[in-house]
C-alpha cells in the first residue's frame, strides 16, 4: 500500500517515526526511515500490520519498504 502525508518524529519513549496523513490519521512507521526527510511531505510504501500493536501505542502500524520525498 501507499500512503502520503507529513513525516514526523514523535517523542515517546525512545522516539518514533509517524506519518500524519491528510485526513489526520497518524501511522507509526517501522523500518528504514531517512531522518533527513523529517517534516517533509513524503510517500510511504509498505505493509500495514493488521491486528497489530506497537510499542509506541499511538495508532496503526506500517512496516516500511520505502519512503520517498514528494515535491
Amino acid at each position: 500500500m501507499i500512503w502520503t502525508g507529513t513525516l514526523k518524529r514523535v517523542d515517546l519513549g525512545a522516539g518514533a517515526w509517524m506519518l500524519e496523513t491528510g485526513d489526520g490519521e497518524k501511522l507509526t512507521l517501522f523500518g528504514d526511515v531517512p531522518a533527513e526527510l523529517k517534516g517533509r511531505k513524503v510517500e510511504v510504501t509498505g505493509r500495514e500490520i493488521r491486528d497489530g500493536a506497537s510499542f509506541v501505542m499511538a495508532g496503526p502500524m506500517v512496516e516500511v519498504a520505502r519512503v520517498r520525498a514528494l515535491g
Partner: protein
Amino acid sequence: MTRRSLIGVALAGTVAATFALGPDAIERHKPAVPEVGSAAHRGGTLVVDLVDGASEADLQKVEAELGVDLSWLSELTVDEALAVGEVPDLAAALAVLRDEALVETAEPELMLSLDPEELSVATVSETLPDGYPNDPLYEKQWHLRAMGAPDGWAHSPRGKGVVVAVVDTGITRVEDLEGVRMLEGASFVPGAKTAADDQGHGTHVAGTIAQATNNGKGCAGVAPEATLLPVKVLSGAGFGSSAWIAAGIDYAVDEGADVINLSLGGGYSSVIHNAIKKAHAKGVIVVAAAGNGGRRGVSWPGALEEAIGVSSVGPSGSLAPYSSYGEGVDIAGPGGDKTKPGGGVFQDTIDGRGGHHYAEYQGTSMATPHVAGAAAVLLSRGMAPDAVERALLETADGDGSWNEKYGHGKLSLTAALGRSVGKHGSTRFALAAVFALLIGQLASTNRSFQIKSAAFAGWVAGGLFLLEYLPLPDLLLTRLIAHPLLSWPALLLGPGFASFPLWLSAALPAVVGFSLGAFRQTRWLAYGLACGVGAHLLHGAATGTVGVSLLPASLAGLWLVANATVAMLVGLGLAGAEKLEEAGRR
C-alpha cells in the same frame, strides 16, 4: 437482659461493625473484550495456545486437524504449550480450532514493534542534594517525589524479595543498575540470545522500578531492593509478536514473578489475554500502559480486566497530552510531559553506541513502572497481591470516583502505604483485644488471664504496628515484631506465601489450642492466638485486605469467615477450660 447475653450482643455487634466498615468491591471500568476470530480469509502465522503440558502427540493431533505443520514456539515454553505455524486461511483455521479441547486459544500472530532510532538524550549533571538519596540526578526526578517514592524508601523493605518482570526490549546492566538484584531472564525474540537490551526502552523502564538508590550515582528508583527479571519480547530492530509477548509472560510467571510490567500495547490479542489471565489467577500483579494515542481509547493489554491500566501525567499533575484515556484506565502515574522543561522521566539506559546515558523519556511506558515499583514496595511489606491492587486504586489521589483520564486517581505510594501495616494494624490490634476480652468475660475467666491474652491477641492480629513509625533499623527481627503473625510467611518466604489458605485458617489455633492450651501456664497464649487469628481473618474478609490463594475468589470470603468462626470457637473452648480449672482449684 443477663450479663452474658449483653456480652453476646457486644460480640455480635463487634463482628457486624467489622463488616459494616468493609468496602464494596472496587468499581472497575474496563471495555468489553473484542470477538476473536474475525480475521479475513487470508493466510498467515497462527499462534496456538494448547492446554498446559500438552504432549508431542497432542500437537500432532492439532496439526492433523489443521493440515499444516506446527512447531513449539520455544523450548522455554513447552510447559505452556505455545505453537506456531503457517496456515493458508486464518479464519478457517480458527474455526477448526474453536471447539478443540486441546486448544486453549488461537489467533493470528500479531506483530508488535518499536523504532530503532536513537534515543533522546538528556545527559545532565547536578550538584548533590543533601540527605537521602545521594544520587546526583534525583533532583531531576520530580516523578519519584510526585508518587511518594521517598515514603517507600523510608518505611519499607523497598521491594526486597519481590520479583518484578520487565517484559520489554530487555535489560542491560548499565552503571546505575550495578548492585541491583537481577535474574538472568530470557529472550523470546528470534536472533536475540539473551535478555540484554539492544534498544534502551526496557533498561529505562527497569531503572524506574529498581535503579540503584543512594549509591552516589545517577538516578534513584521506586523499589531499589526488588529483583528484576528481564524478559525480552521486543526486538531492537523494531518488531515483536503477540506470541513472543505471551510466551514472555508465561515465562515470567514460571520464574516466580510477583509483578509483571508491560510498557507496551496495541490491538487485542487473545493469546496475550490468556497468558495474563493465568498470571493474574496465580496472584501476579500485571501493570500495563494505557497507550499514547492522545485520545479516548486504551490500548490492550492495558484495557484488560486482569491488568492495572496506567495513564500518564506530567509534572503539573494533569494528563499528559499524548496519554490515551477512557474505559480501561485504572490509575494515573507520572510518565512525563516534555513540553515542560525537565518534564520527562529520568533514568539510566544504553545509548546505542555501546555506552550508557541518563535519558529523559516520556510516555505511558514510563508511567507504568512507577505503579509496578509501588506494587513491589507494598508486596515486600507482607501485603497480599489483591490487597495491593486494592490499596493502589483506592488510595489513588482523586475525588473518590472513577474518571476516564486518571481512573481512580493519581498513584500515591504514600497513601497506599497507609494500608500496609499502620492503619489495619491498629484496627486489627483493637479488634482482637476486644474479642479476647469479651470472650474471656463470657466464660467468666479472671482479669489477669483476659488482659495478658488480649495483649497477645492484639499483637497476633495487628503486630506492634507503632514500631513502623519509630526510627528503628530495618532488620528482619523488627519487621517481624511490627507485623501481624499471619504476615510472617510473606516476610520470611516472599509475597507468594501471603495467601496460602492453610496458614489463613483455624489450623494453627487448633493445633496450639490442643497443645499449649492444655497447660495452665501457656493457655493464655493459645487463647490469645485463637482470638488474634479469628480477628485477623474476620477483618480480612470484611475489608478485602486478605487474599486466599488456590481458592476461587467467590469462596475466599467464606473460607475466612468459616475459619475465623472455628478459631473463635477454639478460643471459647480454651476460655471455658480456664474457667473450669479455676473453679476446680477453689
